[in-house]
């Protein structure tokens, strides 16, 4: 550890002992969140999310492909994140590192396992042709809490997305020649339509240092964190995904308190999401 993080650490340790954070927030308070959907014209769906100074852009692209043999009637999701060197002096160009892959997988699980997307409705010809959804997440400006910003950007972009029937019509016509069954799908979906989505779970990330637990860590808080946990809760307040990280530990009571705080913060964030994407 270099000299300046030690000084920062002592400062932040002292503050939390007095119940304070460096930017004046409460322990369970997020930085301001803004969501701008539809900012990329080439993408089928897109959104820019800002949590404080952290800025993330997610884009959705869709194409027609072959299903996996074990799920012949379901669409496919692929999630990738890029921690591009634009966002931080510490990010390097090159193939995705462990941090990037963990981020993409946590976002992917939050969307896949919670069944936000009704993948069964993304089938064109059972066993033959399905929709593939590519979720690409670009970190533009890094000031901590990528998990929540990336998840929220991916969700907002999905809600903004339209299945590109018009654009891919030549391909769909060809499929119809090969598989006459596709006529039924095309009759039901003659033009672009929104993705079949359910009410989403919202992720909230907490970190622990010096026996204090704070939500939505800034970059300095994240750098000195002993333990981190992300909890995704649905509109009913049920838990849909969790991921604990770093070398420190939590007690069971701490986790329970964190889950309760996640539900409260999650419902506020869900409101912001719904207002911004208009559902």
């Amino acid at each position, binding site marked *: 550890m270099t000299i300046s993080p030690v000084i920062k650490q002592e400062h932040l340790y002292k503050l939390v002992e007095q119940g304070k954070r460096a930017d004046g927030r409460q322990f369970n308070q997020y930085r301001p969140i803004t969501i701008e959907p539809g*900012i990329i014209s*080439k993408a089928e769906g897109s959104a820019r999310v800002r949590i404080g100074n952290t*800025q993330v852009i997610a*884009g959705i692209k869709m194409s027609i492909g072959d299903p996996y043999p074990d799920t012949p009637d379901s669409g496919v999701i692929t999630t990738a994140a890029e921690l591009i060197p*634009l966002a931080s002096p510490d990010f390097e160009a090159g193939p995705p590192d462990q941090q990037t892959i963990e981020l993409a997988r946590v976002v992917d699980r939050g969307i896949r396992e919670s069944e936000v997307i009704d993948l069964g409705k993304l089938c064109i010809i059972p066993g033959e042709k399905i929709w593939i959804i*590519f979720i690409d997440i670009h970190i533009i*400006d890094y000031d901590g809490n990528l998990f929540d910003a990336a998840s929220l950007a991916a969700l907002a972009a999905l809600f903004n997305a339209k299945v590109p029937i018009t654009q891919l019509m030549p391909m769909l016509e060809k499929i119809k020649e090969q598989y006459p069954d596709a006529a039924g799908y095309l009759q039901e979906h003659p033009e672009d339509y929104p993705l079949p989505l359910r009410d989403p779970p919202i992720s909230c990330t907490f970190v622990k240092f010096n026996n204090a637990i704070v939500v939505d860590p800034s970059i300095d808080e994240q750098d000195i964190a002993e333990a981190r946990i992300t909890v995704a809760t649905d509109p009913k307040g049920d838990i849909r995904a969790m991921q604990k990280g770093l070398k420190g530990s939590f007690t069971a009571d701490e986790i329970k308190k964190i889950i309760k705080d996640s539900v409260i913060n999650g419902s506020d964030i869900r409101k912001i999401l719904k207002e911004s994407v208009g559902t």
Partner: protein
Amino acid sequence: MKSDKKLIDENGKRLDGRGPDQLRNIKIEAGVLHRADGSCYLEWGGNKVIAAVYGPREAIPKHTQNPLKAIVKARYNMAAFSVDDRKRPGPDRRSQEISKVTSEALEKIVLTDQFPRAAIDVNIEVLDAEAGTRCAGLTAAGVALADAGIPMRDIPVACAAGKIGAENNDGMFSGGFVVLDLGKEEDNFGNADLPIAIAPRTNDIILLQMDGHLTFDEFEHALDLAMKGCQEISKLQKEALLRRYKSDVEVEE
């Protein structure tokens, strides 16, 4: 490269309604990122790019260091969602080439001998692509370098000119119009593209590429158009920087 589309009519009006010497709309904002030392967001027609500058800082890996001056490392990268068919993330041969010629163009402008052994990293991220992203990227990089306070001889600026609407009979071209700043269809179905970057105070050319087919006279005309385009965009760059720092200057006074 045959097209049935008429890219330009007899009166010199183009598909998107522009005249031959008219630029697409350009919007520039300096200082958009919190973490970078300097940054710029630029919209140019349907293009959206962000440039961020880090440095001068120690060049890593060490063998890339130059004991006499700084190196300028530009990295041009396209987002997977920036094009019609999703692009596989990461550098491909095209973006590597653009990164190289952009680095070389910027290296000429930056006063590199002030920072021996250092690197100045310029990251150009294409978020939405619609013809002319390398010019948009380099123009944004110029503003980001200035925003980062990197000492430079000038603020570099780029723009393209090209030729559209020529008759192609088995590779023999006839007719056609030389126009400024090719749009999407013009880029796909046009006859020639000539992107350049200049130092606008001296008109020194720091980047030049060309593909297609131009006569010498057409080249002269296209170069002249592109230079004028650069001068126009140069004004927009300076206005963006002024907007960013005007309030600071007033406070200091």
